[in-house]
């Protein structure tokens, strides 16, 4: 029945700790328990100690530990129930079990072939130590690659019952792993291995064929020192009713509750299947591979790394989805927020108007209304604060006027910035500013230099532009901004204002003769682009004129501005001196 199906005998004289897999650990234990196989008491297991580990449930009998002790894989457990006890009936924990048709065979063969034998990984040649749990033993401990030559049990063509009846002695030949299909099935002599290439019967300790050096199929003989104390023999009268598919643990001396919680935790964490494939297919399909399930598992090797990458990608995806959901929610709510802001604004306006009309009254009327005056004094500041925060959030109402006091802070800030910019440009008494030796500077250069001087909390161009109008009041000599026709913006001292520069330029040209743009740039110590802008401005107001070498009779040349020479404006004030 259930107990026989799902349990395997152990030698209870050995301490439980020594029976564990390497990666298994004991969670809790409870003595004075009895076992029910299905609804009935199991006669041989009425007084013992129960241990719950990460992988298994151990029962060590008190009276006959050698013969009657057993363990059961937790993977069989599909459901648990707790019964608190009534009068003389002890509290009980019921374990509902499930198993597939081949499970018994499979686990048996795995025990014999993988559980307690070291094996070599085919990828990294790491010799994995024995003693790991069946699931952990399927994956290489170093590189994490699943064991390729895992002995897949041959699916029996006959029902398991008859199979095990016909081969009662633990079905050795069928449990032999057959990685190659060419392995002769008629390999009856247990001491020899037939070479798959030349069929020579090699000694079984050889790895490659003595004759042709072909690698031999590895035969793992079951080396059972002692016959199993309880030969697995299925019941012929097995009924698959849910009643029989369960095991009860009866707690004669209490301790049921702490044990039950620990058991449930162990069942929930599913450590036995964490390292690869679960032994029970039905359980495996139910397990959802989420990060939380595997977080407690030690990850190693390539698959571990891949697992980590996958997990982090998944986590990112989840975070992104959450973020987008938040954003969508915000978009849905945006209209409400705007409406709320509008209402708030209206209330504030109403409150401020009423308080402003009220405050002189309250001051005049009675001293008892001091509280209202306090409020009316406090309110404008708060209203300003709320409004400025609303405008900072971009929820500023178009109908609400931007009052002066609302912008008071910002204006002070801009003025402070203007003072700072003035210092950067003109320098303090000891240090030189950017415009110490230059009368004119392009806006982009000034902005970049300022931000470089600030280092942190950089100023956006829009703020920079709004600071510029305040600059003349903070500088000595005044620095003003000017925008040329091409859109180039500059900051300049009075010497470089349009009129002053034009006068200077025409005077210089009259004195030293016509010049090209580049010569003017050299003379003034400004960039060519800037000088051409300023010359264009001077030409536009008529203080200079041009001579294009394209009008030359001989030679000529210089396309574009290259052939231009600048003259003082000869045409103004010209009086006809030729023949009439």
């Amino acid at each position, binding site marked *: 029945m259930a107990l026989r199906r799902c349990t395997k005998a152990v030698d209870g004289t050995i301490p439980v700790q020594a029976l564990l897999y390497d990666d298994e650990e004991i969670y809790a234990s409870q003595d004075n328990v009895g076992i029910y196989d299905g609804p009935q008491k199991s006669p041989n297991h009425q007084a013992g100690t129960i241990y719950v580990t990460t992988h298994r449930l151990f029962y060590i009998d008190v009276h006959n530990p050698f013969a009657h002790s057993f363990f059961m894989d937790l993977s069989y457990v599909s459901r648990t129930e707790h019964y608190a006890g009534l009068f003389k009936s002890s509290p009980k924990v019921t374990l509902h079990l499930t198993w597939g048709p081949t499970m018994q065979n499979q686990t048996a063969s795995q025990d014999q072939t993988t559980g307690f034998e070291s094996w070599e990984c085919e990828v990294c040649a790491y010799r994995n130590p024995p003693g790991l749990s069946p699931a952990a033993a399927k994956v290489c401990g170093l590189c994490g690659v699943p064991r390729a030559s895992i002995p897949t049990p041959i699916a029996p063509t006959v029902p398991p019952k008859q199979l095990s009846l016909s081969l009662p002695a633990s079905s050795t030949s069928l449990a032999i792993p057959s990685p190659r299909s060419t392995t002769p099935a008629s390999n009856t002599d247990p001491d020899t291995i037939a070479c798959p290439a030349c069929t020579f019967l090699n000694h079984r300790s050889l790895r490659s064929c003595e004759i042709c050096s072909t690698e031999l199929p590895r035969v793992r003989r079951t080396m059972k020192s002692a016959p199993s104390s309880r030969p697995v023999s299925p019941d012929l009268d097995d009924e698959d009713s849910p009643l029989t598919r369960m095991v009860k643990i009866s707690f004669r001396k209490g301790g049921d509750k702490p044990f039950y919680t620990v058991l449930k935790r162990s069942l929930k964490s599913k450590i036995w299947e964490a390292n690869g494939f679960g032994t029970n297919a039905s359980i495996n399909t139910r397990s959802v591979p989420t990060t939380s399930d595997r977080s407690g598992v030690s990850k190693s090797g390539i698959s571990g790394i891949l697992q980590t990458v996958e997990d982090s990608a998944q986590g990112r995806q989840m975070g992104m989805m959450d973020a987008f959901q938040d954003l969508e929610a915000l978009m849905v709510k945006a209209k409400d927020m705007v409406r709320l802001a509008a209402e708030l604004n209206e209330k504030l306006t109403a409150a401020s108007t009423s308080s402003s009309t009220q405050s002189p009254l309250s001051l005049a009327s009675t001293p008892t209304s001091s509280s209202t005056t306090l409020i009316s004094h406090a309110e404008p500041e708060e209203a300003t604060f709320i409004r400025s925060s609303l405008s900072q959030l971009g929820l500023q109402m178009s109908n609400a006027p931007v009052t002066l006091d609302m912008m008071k802070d910002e204006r002070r800030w801009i003025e402070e910035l203007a003072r700072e910019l003035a210092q950067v440009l003109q320098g303090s008494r000891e240090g030189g500013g950017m415009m110490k030796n230059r009368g004119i500077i392009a806006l982009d250069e000034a902005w970049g230099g300022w931000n470089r001087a600030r280092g942190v909390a950089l100023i956006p161009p829009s703020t920079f532009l709004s600071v510029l109008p305040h600059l003349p009041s903070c500088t000595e000599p005044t620095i003003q901004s000017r925008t040329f026709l091409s859109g180039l913006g500059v900051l300049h001292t009075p010497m470089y204002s349009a009129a002053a520069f034009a006068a200077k330029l025409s005077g210089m040209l009259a004195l030293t003769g016509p010049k090209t743009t580049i010569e003017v740039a050299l003379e003034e110590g400004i960039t060519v682009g800037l000088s051409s802008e300023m010359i264009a401005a001077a*030409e536009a107001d*008529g203080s200079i004129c041009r001579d294009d070498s394209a009008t*030359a009779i*001989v030679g000529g040349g210089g396309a574009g501005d290259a052939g231009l020479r600048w*003259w003082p404006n000869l045409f103004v004030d010209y009086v006809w001196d030729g023949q009439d």
Partner: protein
Amino acid sequence: MSLTTHTTTSGFILPSIHSAPPFFTQQPNPTTQSIATDQWIHLIQAYARHNRLFVLRVEDAEISGNDWDEVLRNERINRKLLPMHLTQILAKMVFSNVATYDPPKQTRSVLLYWRLPDEWAEVLHSWAVSTAQLNTILTFYDITDPPVKSELSGIPVSLLRKAINILVKSGRAQLIGVADGEGVRLFSGGR
């Protein structure tokens, strides 16, 4: 940098501005350009009057070796007037009624009015009075190519016709069709 006047071989005194290279460049500044254009018109009219030139063509600026070389080119400063610039000057002359496109409906050739048609009418009338040819029939050829050289010598027929038309309107002339063309009879006028 002082610019001086220059006297050409034909005895015409070029103004000092003709020696300034910017004078030959089209100025982008409209104010400057209008001043320069005015000076050009002044120069062209003075030169035409001096040399009795009645026609100015854009080709004169394109090809050298014609009557206008002394004005439209300045070898001393290696500058010349570009045809496009001249076209604009001509347009302004026509606009300000000191020239007219001749033949009409094109913009590459103008008839210069260094004397306005009214003035030419007076010149014609006084010439007829002074040469005692009132009340006689004169062909156009008699006027444009008289035996004794007069102010009217070489005047284009189109300009002459305009002057005669003005006299006709004021009743001092009468156009008469003759066998080999047209004739005109001038009266003492004033009635």
